[in-house]
């Protein structure tokens, strides 16, 4: 492994980082509340969107190259294996870039309303994306750590972005403390694994750990997994989620919920299935019980929530539980199921939080707009917002014809075909419980008399576009899922 850095392979990340820095530098000149035609075109949001677009094009070039590569070359590696491009990673990079783009487009009016329309927001969002793309396109633990810390630190800042709100600041601090706490475990785990294998390359560690690798390896693996479980928000490492999701600006919450889970799951799959699949019989019980615990606890607590952001927070934890089911299925079935589910999840989560952002008044004291009670009659007062929210909630509940339905379908199908009957049954039962609180929101929106609350945010064209894309994504995946199911099934091969 003496090859030099192949710059082409890191172009997406470089683009994101470069545009992030550009936004940071330029925002004093092009940011703020300037009027005029020029400001409509040249502003931090558009610059950031351009950055994501560039990264996506770079990623597309890599994709072309990868999919056109001659047989046998299933991946490109550079920088001593620190950058690792394969179909699996490319898919996740696309997904993350899509989520980022949607958040950038949909956030502008919300930030203005919250008084947080600083250029830094867009710079930080791009840094988050850069960190995540780094993380999903590597097999090297150092790169995983760097990517993780880049996006985590950026998210801590983003969480506290609305610094006038006490909740925002408080949640940023909580997130930072617990995030640092979990990173400590994770880094220690990496160190132990290095001690076992003498390498930080996951595949090397996997090769060195065949047979009976001894307690140092197990403790190292356990600590690494715990770090990832924290990011994914698996019970009992989940308790930061409701507080942080509630405190963070709502658009950031949506971004966190959709993107963090996606990136962390990609790494989790690389670790458990890509590197340590040979030890599946050891880690399967852990993941199985964590899946059961996560689904059940999250759904039960979600029943008792009266705040839409907390409700969606517990809902996102529950989704992590469903996704864990697929981790312990046969990889040929499970990995593709996770990729499909995460795609549907991205659309419905971004969509739901964007609606919540539009409806909820970020009033520093009471935050009444996020109380379910104030959503009464919303479906009649704001028919388009209500209908969109209904689509997202039905998808989360797994009701056809939505992407969420097929997501659950492929996961439960994988579970049954892999003989994981217990998980399938618990998963279905949990889906029943979950339907209750999702439908309760719909009932509130359509069947409760609404008191006169302040007008929610008028839906700007850009936000409307994001919602239309989300609804379309959810419905297309629900009506014609076959294309994506086939695609992710093939891409998953590069991991297994």
């Amino acid at each position, binding site marked *: 492994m003496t090859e030099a850095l192949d710059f082409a392979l890191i172009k997406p990340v470089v683009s994101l980082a470069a545009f992030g820095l550009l936004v940071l530098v330029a925002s004093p000149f092009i940011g703020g509340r300037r009027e005029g035609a020029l400001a409509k075109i040249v502003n931090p949001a558009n610059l950031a969107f351009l950055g994501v677009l560039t990264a996506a094009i770079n990623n597309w070039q890599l994709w072309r190259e990868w999919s056109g590569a001659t047989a046998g070359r299933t991946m490109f590696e550079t920088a001593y294996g620190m950058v690792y491009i394969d179909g699996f990673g490319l898919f996740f990079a696309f997904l993350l870039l899509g989520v980022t783009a949607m958040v950038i487009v949909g956030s502008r009016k919300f930030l203005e309303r919250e008084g947080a329309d600083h250029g830094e927001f867009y710079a930080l969002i791009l840094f988050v994306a850069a960190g995540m793309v780094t993380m999903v396109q590597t097999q090297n633990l150092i790169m995983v750590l760097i990517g993780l810390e880049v996006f985590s630190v950026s998210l801590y800042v983003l969480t506290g972005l609305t610094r006038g709100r006490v909740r925002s600041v408080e949640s940023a601090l*909580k997130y930072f*403390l*617990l995030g640092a*706490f*979990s990173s400590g*475990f994770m880094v220690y785990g990496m160190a132990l694994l290095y001690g076992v294998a003498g390498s930080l390359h996951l595949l090397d560690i996997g090769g060195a750990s065949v047979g009976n690798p001894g*307690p140092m390896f*197990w*403790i190292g*693996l*356990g*600590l690494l*997994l*715990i770090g990832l*479980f*924290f990011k994914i928000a698996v019970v*009992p*490492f989940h*308790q*930061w989620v*409701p*507080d942080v999701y509630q405190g963070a600006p709502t658009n950031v919450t949506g971004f966190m919920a959709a993107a963090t889970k996606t990136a962390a799951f990609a790494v989790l799959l690389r670790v458990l299935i890509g590197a340590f699949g040979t030890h599946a019989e*050891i880690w399967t*019980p*852990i993941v199985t019980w964590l899946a059961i615990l996560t689904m059940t*606890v999250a759904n*039960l*607590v*979600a*029943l*008792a929530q009266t705040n839409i952001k907390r409700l969606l927070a517990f809902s996102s934890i529950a989704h992590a539980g469903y996704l864990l089911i697929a981790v312990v299925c046969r990889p040929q079935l499970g990995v593709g199921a996770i990729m499909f589910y995460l795609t549907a999840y991205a659309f419905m989560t971004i969509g739901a939080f964007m609606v919540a952002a539009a409806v909820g008044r970020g009033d520093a004291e009471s935050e009444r707009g996020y109380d379910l009670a104030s959503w009464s009659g919303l479906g009649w007062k704001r028919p388009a917002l209500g209908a969109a929210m209904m689509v997202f909630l039905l998808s989360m509940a797994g009701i056809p014809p939505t992407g969420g339905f097929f997501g659950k379908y492929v996961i439960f199908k994988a579970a049954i075909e892999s003989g994981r009957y217990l998980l399938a049954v618990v998963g279905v039962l949990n889906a029943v*419980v979950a339907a*209750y609180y999702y439908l309760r929101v719909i009932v509130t929106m359509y069947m409760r008399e609404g008191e006169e609350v302040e007008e929610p945010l008028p839906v700007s064209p850009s936000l409307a576009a994001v919602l239309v894309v989300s609804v379309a994504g959810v419905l297309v995946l629900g009506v014609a899922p076959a294309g994506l199911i086939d695609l992710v099934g093939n891409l998953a091969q590069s991991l297994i």
Partner: protein
Amino acid sequence: MLDLIWLIPLVPLVGVAINGLWGRRLPLRAVGAIACLAVAVSLLLSIGAVWQLSSLPEGARFHAVSLGTWLPLENLHVAWGFAIDPLSAVMVLVVSGVGFLIHVYSIGYMAHEPDYARFFTYMNLFMAMMLTLVLGDNMLVMFVGWEGVGLCSYLLIGFFYDRPFDARTGLSCADAGRKAFVTNRIGDFAFLIGVLYLAVSYGTLNFASISEAVRHADPASHGMLVAVGILLFLGACGKSAQIPLYVWLPDAMAGPTPVSALIHAATMVTAGVYMVTRMSALYAAAPEAMAVVAAVGALTAIFAATMGITARDIKKILAYSTVSQLGYMFAACGVGAYVAGVFHLMTHAFFKALLFLGAGSVIHGMSDEQDVTKMGGLKAKMPVTFWTMMMATLAISGIPGFAGFFSKDEILAGAWSAGNVWVWGILAAAAGITAFYMFRLIALTFWGRFRGTDEQEHHLHESPTLMTVPLVILAILSVVGGWIGIPAVMTGGADVNLFHHWLAPAITLPGAAHGAAEAAGHGAEAAHSAATEWGLIGLAVAIALVGIFLAVGLYRRGQEAAGRIAASVRPLYNLLRNLYWVDEFYDLVVLRPFYRLSRFFAAFDRWVVDGLVNASGITMDITGQIVKLFQTGYVRNYALMFLFGVVVILAYLVSM
């Protein structure tokens, strides 16, 4: 024209669309004219199609049109197919012809009713559905019509949904509609099972294919065929008001009188007879099912006839009569005399529609009075109504020369030659009773002195021309309609039974190989000698005459004489007057236990099922509230929980 048969059921739908959407805003004249015009176009198309059909050679009188695939299933293809053959030709002419006359009559009869447009919308919808039923070339299209006419029947019985109907039972018109619908559902359910059975067994629902498949059926499937035959017949029992499902028809009289004439006398209730005839190949392969048909038909014929003796509502008398006459038709089918059955179906459509329309005219003239014991002497004031109804009464009584005579005689001859003396005896007796109650109706209504109020006498008048013209046309048909089926014995052996020649090729008889059906049919009916046949005819006419003389003698001057006789046989009278307590019996044996069961399940659902569901919901909710307590908001607690997880996971991994 033959390629346009699909338009025959479709044209009335145009009327439905126009009157249904804009009827309320259109003038009354326009509504009536549109409805009649739609049916008239169907009638003309039917006549044209039948004319062309008749010009085809005898063996080739069949034409099918498909409007495209309906259900392209893997093992079953069903098309939107329509077909015309001699049998559906008869039906389509009867339905559109009688339907047209009744539509014209309704313009006058319904003139004073609100919701005029709704009435004609339903009537046109009924025509569309009935014509679909008779023209469908597979069982599923037929079933569309079958259910469609059921729906229209329900809608039209309950047309006066806000009025009470029967003081004795406390039924409202809406209840009567429901009763008809629910009773029909029982039959329809059996029918549908039969249809599905056929679909699964033969992979086709096309009538021609089913007939072909049944002819070559595996002997091992005999039991299945019998079961299917009986299931289909149960459907027919519902639609055509046979024992045990006849109870809805008398209450169906809650609908406006033209509805009773069109749906509950001439057309819809004969759908069962049509269906059984259509499936003659199946019944030929299942003689046991035919025996059931014959027995049920004959029993219904006499059973319903006896109930007609004591009824007082003019329309209910006619309703029992209809049930009884339908029994005749089924008995004919059951003994293999399908031609006679359909022949009677046709003549019955003429004279029974006429009787109902006449009754409507009487009710109209009597200011909505329906009790015959409160009428009398109407002959002078309503001559057209009287004379036309007289024609129909003579026809239904089987007086030689009138339409009913020929068809009834053919049925009796068929029963006799099939060796079924019991069926013959029952039907002959029923004929006598029929003659009796029909002349009772005539005598009480038109003869003697007027027994109504002065107010009614003051208003008494003949009906308008729009109503009497259809009466006259139907009266003519009630006389000459039978002449197309004159038995050979009456013409000295000359074979002029046109109806038989027309219809026989469309029918499969038991024991007859394909193609030889007609010959065998002739053979069976010619089995008895001319002398026997004359004797049978004479006997039947004599029985009818006895019935007539008894009725005229008893009721000519009112009902006092009959009342004395009734008093002397009080138990028998009560039995008949209360209709054998069949409704009460059903109430006790079917409805009440069913309601009890329903209440039990309702309670079970509310307390046990809902209870469990609610209990699990409440448990979840409480658990959620408890688990929520761990969400304290303190970072130290979160870190502790985190650490707990770390310890458990590491302990597990190290211990492995």
